[in-house]
C-alpha cells in the first residue's frame, strides 16, 4: 500500500505531496463535499453530476440504506422510515423538539439524545448523520482518487457542545478523521473573503433548513477575526415549510393527517415556498389517501405574512451579535447571505432594510460553506496554502460556567471570547471540615443552571479539613482552538487537583465507535488496522518534516553536535520503519524521535516569537 512517498534515508525530503482533505457541509436539507483542486476550492459532484446530496436517509428491512435523492423520492411511500432534517435532532432530547417533529416519527429518548425506530432497527441521529457522511466520503475518495487525510465538518456557529460532539461522533463513525469543526458562517466568510480579498467589517447572515446563525467578522489582510456570533439552533427554512403546511390544513379544513399525507403536504408546502422565490403565485395540489383532493393557490403576499414572524425572530440575534461585537449597522461594510432559505425575496428585503445595503449573494448560498471548509481542510492537512498565509480567529458561541449555591450559574468564560482562551476563578468551601467539592460545568446564557445545558460533572477530593471558607480552590477553564473545553480544579494550599476534558455524557467513546464501525462494515478489522497504519504514517511524516525544517533553520545552534547526531540517527530509524507496514514499530520510532526533538521545538518556537517585533517579551511570561 503505497500511500505516501517517503524519501530514502539521507536524501533530502521530496517536494511536499498534496494531502487529500475535504470540507463537508452537513446540512439540515442538503449536504455537500468540496476540496481544493488545482489551487481552488470546488464542490465535488456525484456520478450524475450533482453537487447537492439531499440529507434524507431511508432505512428498509430488506435492502441497503438509501441516501439522497432516492430516499427523498421514497418518503411519501415510506414516511416513518425515511428520515429528513436529522440535524435538528443532533444532541437533542424529546423535550427539546417541537410537537410537529415529535409526531412525524417513532421517536423516543435514547442514549443521551432521541432515537428513532425504523424498519432496519433503532437509529440514533449520530448513526443517521454518519450514513449521509459515508456517501460524501465515498464520493470524495472517488473524485480525488485517493484516501482522505481528514475532513473539516461545518456546524452552525450557535451549536452547543452536545450538538458539536454528536457531529464529531457521526464523522468518526463514517470513518472520517475530523481535522476541525468549523462554524458555517465563518466558512462562508473564508470562501467569500479569499475570493474577493475583502477588508473591513462583514456580517454573515446564514439561514439554513434548520438553523439560523449571524456572525460579525473583521477581515484584515489574511486574518479572519470573528468578533461575535449569535443565532438560534432551532430556527430555519423547515419552520417556514411547517407554517405553510399549517396554513394548508387550516385553508382546507383538514384534521391532522396520517403520516403519508403529512409528508405529501409538507412536500407541497416546500415546493410552493420555493416556487414563490421566482413567481407571484404557487399552485398546491395533493390527492389524500382517502381519495379527497386538496387544491389551493398560495400567493407570495400570503407567504410573506406567514414568514414575517420567522424573519422577525432572526433580527434579535442580529442585534445582539452587533452589540457583542461592539459595532453598529452603519459600520458593516457588507452582508453575505448563506443558506438556501436566503433565496426568499422576503428575507433578502428584510436583510436589506435592516443593514441598509444590498446583501452580497455572488457565491452560491448553497456552496459557500463547503468551499470555505475545503480551504481550511487543505491548510490544516498541512498543505501550503495557494491563497497565501491566512489565519482564522474564532470565538466561543456560548458562555461557559459552573453551578454555584442555589442552582445559579457563575460565568467563567463569556460568550464570544477569542479562542484559545483560559480563565480561572477562585472558590472556597462552605462547610467546616469539607473535604470534597463537586463541580458542575454548564453552557448557556441563563442565570439558572436548570436553563443551561449541562456539560460535565466531576469532583475534587482530598481537600484537607479546614474551617469553612479556608480552602482556596482555583478552577481553570481552557478552551483550545478546536473549541474543546477542559476544566481543572486545584486546592492551592494542599496542591490536590482534579481535571476533566469535557465531553457530554452521551459522547461516544472510541471503543463504542469501533464497535459501531464493526457492526456496519464487513471488513472492519482490516479497515481499522489500515486506518491505524495510515494515521501513524501521516503523523510520522509530519514529525520528520517539521524536524527537517527546524534543522534547516538551525542557524543559531540550538543543538550541540552530539544532540544533533542523536536526532539524525532517530530520524533515520524512523524513516527505516516507514518502509515497512508495522504501525506499532512506526509509533515507537516516532515517539523516540519526538522526545529527542522536543527541546528543539520549544527553542525554535520561542526564537520565532522573539524575532517578531511584537512578541519580544512573550517567552518571558511563560
Amino acid at each position, binding site marked *: 500500500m503505497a500511500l505516501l512517498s517517503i524519501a530514502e534515508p539521507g536524501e533530502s525530503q521530496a517536494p511536499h505531496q498534496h494531502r487529500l482533505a475535504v470540507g463537508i457541509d452537513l446540512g439540515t436539507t442538503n449536504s455537500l463535499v468540496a476540496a481544493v483542486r488545482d489551487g481552488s476550492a470546488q464542490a465535488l459532484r456525484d456520478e450524475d453530476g450533482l453537487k447537492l446530496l439531499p440529507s434524507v436517509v431511508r432505512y428498509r428491512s430488506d435492502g441497503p440504506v438509501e441516501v439522497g435523492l432516492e430516499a427523498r423520492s421514497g418518503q411519501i411511500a415510506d414516511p416513518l422510515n425515511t428520515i429528513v432534517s436529522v440535524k435538528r435532532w443532533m444532541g437533542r432530547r424529546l423535550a427539546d423538539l417541537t410537537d410537529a417533529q415529535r409526531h412525524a416519527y417513532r421517536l423516543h429518548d435514547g442514549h443521551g439524545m432521541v432515537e428513532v425506530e425504523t424498519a432496519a432497527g433503532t437509529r440514533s441521529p449520530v448513526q443517521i448523520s454518519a450514513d449521509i457522511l459515508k456517501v460524501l466520503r465515498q464520493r470524495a475518495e472517488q473524485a480525488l482518487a485517493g484516501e482522505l487525510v481528514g475532513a473539516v465538518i461545518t456546524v452552525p456557529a450557535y451549536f452547543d457542545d452536545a450538538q458539536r460532539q454528536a457531529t464529531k461522533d457521526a464523522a468518526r463513525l463514517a470513518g472520517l478523521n475530523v481535522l476541525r469543526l468549523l462554524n458555517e458562517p465563518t466558512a462562508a466568510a473564508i470562501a467569500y473573503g479569499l475570493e474577493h480579498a475583502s477588508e473591513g467589517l462583514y456580517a454573515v447572515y446564514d439561514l439554513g433548513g434548520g438553523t439560523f446563525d449571524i456572525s460579525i467578522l473583521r477581515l484584515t489582510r489574511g486574518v479572519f477575526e470573528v468578533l461575535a456570533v449569535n443565532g438560534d439552533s432551532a430556527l430555519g427554512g423547515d419552520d417556514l415549510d411547517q407554517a405553510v403546511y399549517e396554513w394548508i390544513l387550516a385553508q382546507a379544513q383538514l384534521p391532522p393527517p396520517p403520516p403519508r399525507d403529512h409528508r405529501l403536504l409538507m412536500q407541497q408546502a416546500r415546493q410552493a415556498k420555493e416556487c414563490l422565490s421566482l413567481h407571484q403565485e404557487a399552485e398546491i395540489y395533493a390527492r389524500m389517501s382517502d381519495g379527497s383532493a386538496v387544491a389551493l393557490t398560495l400567493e407570495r403576499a400570503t407567504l410573506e405574512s406567514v414568514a414575517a414572524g420567522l424573519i422577525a425572530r432572526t433580527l434579535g440575534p442580529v442585534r445582539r451579535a452587533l452589540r457583542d461585537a461592539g459595532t453598529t449597522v452603519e459600520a458593516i461594510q457588507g452582508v453575505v447571505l448563506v443558506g438556501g432559505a436566503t433565496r426568499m425575496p422576503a428575507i433578502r428585503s428584510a436583510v436589506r432594510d435592516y443593514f441598509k445595503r444590498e446583501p452580497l449573494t455572488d457565491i452560491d448560498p448553497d456552496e459557500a460553506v463547503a468551499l470555505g471548509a475545503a480551504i481550511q481542510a487543505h491548510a490544516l492537512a498541512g498543505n501550503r496554502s495557494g491563497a497565501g498565509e491566512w489565519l482564522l*480567529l474564532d470565538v466561543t458561541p456560548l458562555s461557559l460556567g459552573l453551578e454555584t449555591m442555589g442552582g445559579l450559574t457563575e460565568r467563567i468564560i463569556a460568550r464570544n*471570547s*477569542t479562542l484559545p482562551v*483560559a480563565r480561572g476563578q477562585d472558590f472556597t468551601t462552605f462547610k467546616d471540615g469539607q473535604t470534597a467539592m463537586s463541580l458542575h460545568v454548564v453552557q448557556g446564557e441563563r442565570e439558572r443552571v436548570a436553563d443551561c445545558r449541562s456539560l460535565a460533572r466531576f469532583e475534587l477530593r482530598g481537600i484537607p479539613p479546614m474551617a469553612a471558607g479556608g480552602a482556596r480552590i482555583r478552577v481553570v477553564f481552557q478552551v483550545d482552538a478546536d473549541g474543546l473545553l477542559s476544566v481543572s480544579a486545584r486546592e492551592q494550599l494542599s496542591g490536590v487537583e482534579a481535571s476533566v476534558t469535557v465531553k457530554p455524557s452521551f459522547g461516544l467513546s472510541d471503543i463504542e465507535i469501533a464497535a459501531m464501525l464493526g457492526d456496519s462494515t464487513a471488513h472492519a478489522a482490516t479497515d481499522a488496522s489500515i486506518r491505524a497504519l495510515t494515521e501513524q504514517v501521516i503523523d510520522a511524516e*509530519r514529525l520528520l518534516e*517539521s524536524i527537517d525544517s527546524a534543522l534547516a533553520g538551525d542557524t543559531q545552534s540550538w543543538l550541540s553536535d552530539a544532540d544533533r547526531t542523536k536526532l539524525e540517527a532517530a530520524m533515520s530509524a524512523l524513516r527505516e520503519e516507514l518502509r515497512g507496514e508495522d504501525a506499532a514499530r512506526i509509533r515507537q520510532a516516532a515517539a523516540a524521535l519526538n522526545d529527542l*526533538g522536543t527541546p528543539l521545538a520549544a527553542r*525554535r518556537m520561542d526564537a520565532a516569537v522573539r524575532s517578531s*517585533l511584537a512578541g519580544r517579551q*512573550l517567552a518571558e511570561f511563560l
Partner: protein
Amino acid sequence: MTHCGSTAPPDYFSLFNLEPRFALLLDELDIAYRTLASQVHPDRFAAGTAAEQRRALELATHANEAYRALKTPLLRARHLLGLRGVEIGESGGAMRPVFLDRQIECREALGDARMTRDAAALRELGASVREHAAALSTGLAAQLDTLRDDAGAVESVLQLMFLDKLLADIDDAFDELEA
C-alpha cells in the same frame, strides 16, 4: 513553564511593545495583536509536533488574554493601575453621593422602561449612560497619563464598573422586549 512571581502581574503593554499609557492608539494595538496571533496560533502548527502545538496553545491563549485586557477602557485602566501596584476589588470602595444619586435615577428609569416595555426610553437611557462612560474614559486619560492621579483614577474605574453593569442590564431589558 515558569510564571512571574505572583506579586508582579504580567505587563501586557510590553508584550505588544506599546507604551504603558491609557490613551493608546487602538489601531496600533490591533495590528500588534494580529501580528502576534498570526505567529503563535495553534493552526500555524497544525502540521507541527505535539510539543510545538502545546507551546502554541499557551502562547496564543496568553496573547488573547493580553488583547482582551487592553482593548476596553475599563480593563485597560485596571491593568495599568495593577502595574502600578493599585488593585481594585470587585466590591469597590466608597462612592460620591452625587454619583450614587444619579445611579439611582438611572435604575428607576430602567425599571420604568421595563415595566412599560418602552424601547425608545431604553435607547435614550443607553445613550446617556454611554455618554457618561465616554466622559469618564476621557477623564481617565488625564488622571492616568498626565496627572498621575491614581486615587482619582480608581474612583473613575469604580464608576465605570457601575455603568458597565447598568449597560448590561439595559441590554438584557432589550432582550426581554424581544422575547
